[in-house]
């Protein structure tokens, strides 16, 4: 229980620090604070996808349903954080450039991850037998493992050259003031801990579901 209490205080403390202690990034002004939520969410989205893909490959090798539970749970949580990152990203874009969506390379990448999550979970929902669902979703996850690098790094760049964005993209390299950097990485760690906590709970639920199904 202490760990959970620690996590509660840790994130709460750094939220306060983000507002009262860290300075604003000159160009971004008050919108800096959205980044404290948006970028960790995007990070957890990628972390969860990686976690899900690793466990999918492990399932294909071992055929142990434990890996399938981990892969499915990570995908569900990843989807939540991906939606959070997409929304916070577009809100921030609206505040910064006046448009909710302008296919900026980073927005495009996050959106494509949303598609991958959506496809994976849609596929899972269309298969009943646990073993077959685990096997086929693991195979799909392995395919996505090949296409995600192209989706995230290559396609947005191509699109970007197709439609050179007239708006100046200020999100390039923000020169982080040391205090901003501290708060940012602290929250990043907090979000990561949050992911693993929720993941553990969701996996335990999946085990209960399997046990109930097999009685």
């Amino acid at each position: 229980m202490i760990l959970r209490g620690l996590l509660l205080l840790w994130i709460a403390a750094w939220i306060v620090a983000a507002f009262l202690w860290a300075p604003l990034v000159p160009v971004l002004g008050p919108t800096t604070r959205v980044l404290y939520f948006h970028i960790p969410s995007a990070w957890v989205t990628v972390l969860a996808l990686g976690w899900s893909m690793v466990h999918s490959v492990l399932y294909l090798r071992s055929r142990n349903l434990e890996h399938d539970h981990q892969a499915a749970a990570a995908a569900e949580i990843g989807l939540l954080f991906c939606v959070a990152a997409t929304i916070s990203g577009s809100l921030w874009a609206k505040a910064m450039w006046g448009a909710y969506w302008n296919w900026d390379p980073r927005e495009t990448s996050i959106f494509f991850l949303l598609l991958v999550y959506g496809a994976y979970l849609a596929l899972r929902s269309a298969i009943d037998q646990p073993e077959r669902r685990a096997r086929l979703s693991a195979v799909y996850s392995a395919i996505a493992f090949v296409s995600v690098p192209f989706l995230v790094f290559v396609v947005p760049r191509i699109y970007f050259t197709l439609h050179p964005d007239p708006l100046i993209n200020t999100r390039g390299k923000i020169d982080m003031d040391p205090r901003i950097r501290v708060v940012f990485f602290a929250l990043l760690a907090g979000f990561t801990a949050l992911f693993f906590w929720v993941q553990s709970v969701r996996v335990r639920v999946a085990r209960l579901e399997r046990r109930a199904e097999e009685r």
Partner: protein
Amino acid sequence: MKGDLVVMAVALLVWGLLFWYLIRLERRVAELEKK
């Protein structure tokens, strides 16, 4: 400055609610596991 405090309070509130929800969920799961 005042606006910042409001937003911060909302952020803390949301985090608190989420945390409380997760604790309750985890306790419920632990109960079910015993059954």
